[in-house]
């Protein structure tokens, strides 16, 4: 079973219309965005997204000249109720897993916390051994 999920990251300078252009490119390929976040630094940002077909998204955006990369992340299922995030983040803390960045969505089938960590395999083992549930790659497609 594959517990890592491929996220695409796109470099974008802060300028009106950049996000729309990226979204439009994905739409034209009929690619669905499941979750996304924008990390911002002075003057530019990185758009990170989980999509149903990361490979095609990568190809499309690269062909349009965007600076794109793919990164393996983990999606942890959370209870969609008060305390859901606490349970998961406590588990990560106890396992000594440092989160580089994270974002979340609630919806089908669960609330999900998406995290990027330094040591992916160690993190997966630690979460599973503590009874945590991870999204599988196949669930997104």
């Amino acid at each position: 079973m594959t517990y890592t999920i491929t996220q695409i990251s796109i470099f974008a300078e802060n300028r009106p219309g950049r996000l729309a252009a990226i979204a439009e490119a994905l739409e034209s390929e009929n690619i669905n965005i499941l979750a996304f976040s924008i990390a911002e630094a002075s003057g530019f940002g990185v758009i990170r997204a989980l999509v149903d077909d990361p490979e095609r998204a990568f190809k499309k955006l690269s062909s349009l000249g965007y600076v794109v990369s793919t990164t393996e992340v983990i999606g942890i299922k959370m209870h969609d109720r008060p305390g859901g995030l606490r349970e998961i983040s406590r588990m990560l803390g106890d396992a000594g897993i440092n989160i580089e960045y994270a974002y979340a969505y609630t919806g089908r089938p669960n609330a999900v916390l998406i995290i990027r960590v330094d040591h992916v395999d160690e993190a997966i083992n630690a979460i599973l051994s503590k009874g945590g549930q991870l999204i599988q790659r196949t669930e997104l497609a």
Partner: protein
Amino acid sequence: MKYLDPRIEEMPRTEIEALQFKLLKTLVYRLYSFSDFYRSRMKEHNVHPDDIRSLDDIVKLPFMYKKDLRDNYPDGMFIGGQEDLVRYHVSSGTTGKPTVVGYTHRDLENWAISVARGLTSIGLGRRDVLQVSYGYGLFTGGLGLHYGAERMGATVVPASVGNTERQIELIQDLRVTAIACTPSYMLHLSEVAEKMGVSFERDTRLRTAVLGAEPWSEKMRARIEGSTGIKAYDIYGTSELSGPLFTECSEQNGIHIWGDLAYVEVIDPETGERLGPGEKGELVITMLQKEALPMMRYRIGDITSFEDSVCGCGRSHVRISRIQGRVDDMLIIRGINVFPSQIEHALMSVPELGEHFQIVVDRKGALDTMLVRVELKSAQLFSDKLDDLIRLKNKVAHQLRNNLNVAVDVELVSPETLTRFEGKAKRVIDRRVL
């Protein structure tokens, strides 16, 4: 004291020209005998020192360019050995290679005399305290004004650049009467002074400013003089000629070029033909007495015109107008010469960057700012981490700072987002209103 050297400064034009001819002859023979560069350049142009039979024959001599200095980096155009030199100055070059200027003892002496005559002509003297707020170091501004003012007998405060509040305290405490700096720094000083509650007119003795090393205008002069009560004078020079050399006099009507030190021509930059008084063109200067790094018919790239009538101050030497622009794309940022080609050179050494960039020059408050927008290379390995991008941005800024000697803001942009040009790229957006 009206003149530093009345014999020279009031010399009738015919006598100046006779002196210039004598000096030119000596220069040309010296270059032909001792400089491989000038000898071969003269041979290429089929001209021999014997062909120079009058001052007007100077037009037979070949031009030289900044490129020649670059091609002969660092000291291929020097005459004599290192043992004859007492100083170097270094200025930034067009493609990463700087320009090195060497000075003999006599070169420094002539430089100081030229500046001292200029400062005298605007009414300064032994009773003045001159704060030199140009950078000291490899840049010629600081030391040039410093030795010129000392030569005249003024008291120098070698403040250099930066630490503006301290500079204003020094102006008050040391009863500074004159300052030398860039026009934009003068504006900055007056803004900071105002914030500190200091009025130059009421609280200081500062009444004279000698401003140069970057382009400015009559409008800016009016603004400085109006808001500070300080008389502002233009000073001109470039490092290749020695440094800041020539100033306006109290008449504020053109910059006096001392004829015993320099011969002025203004040419049509397209044809190389000489232009007459009042006609706008490219300045060409021959330094008549420079020893270590002679300059014969040097095309500086500055646009001006000359005036050869006797000045209202009584001085007989040719005057040039305020510099009105450049024949090339050189920018002057906070007194430092910057060529877009240098920026390109620095950017191309960073593998993560693409080929397209844009330079935006602006003036925030009184200080020049330069922003370089550069595209990332497409389809590159990019780590997805903001930290890495910030590190890249800092690396680019550092690279530019090292190459240009000027702080630069950097903006990373996506590939294919900057405007493309057919033919010559218009990479510079200059929003400064001078």
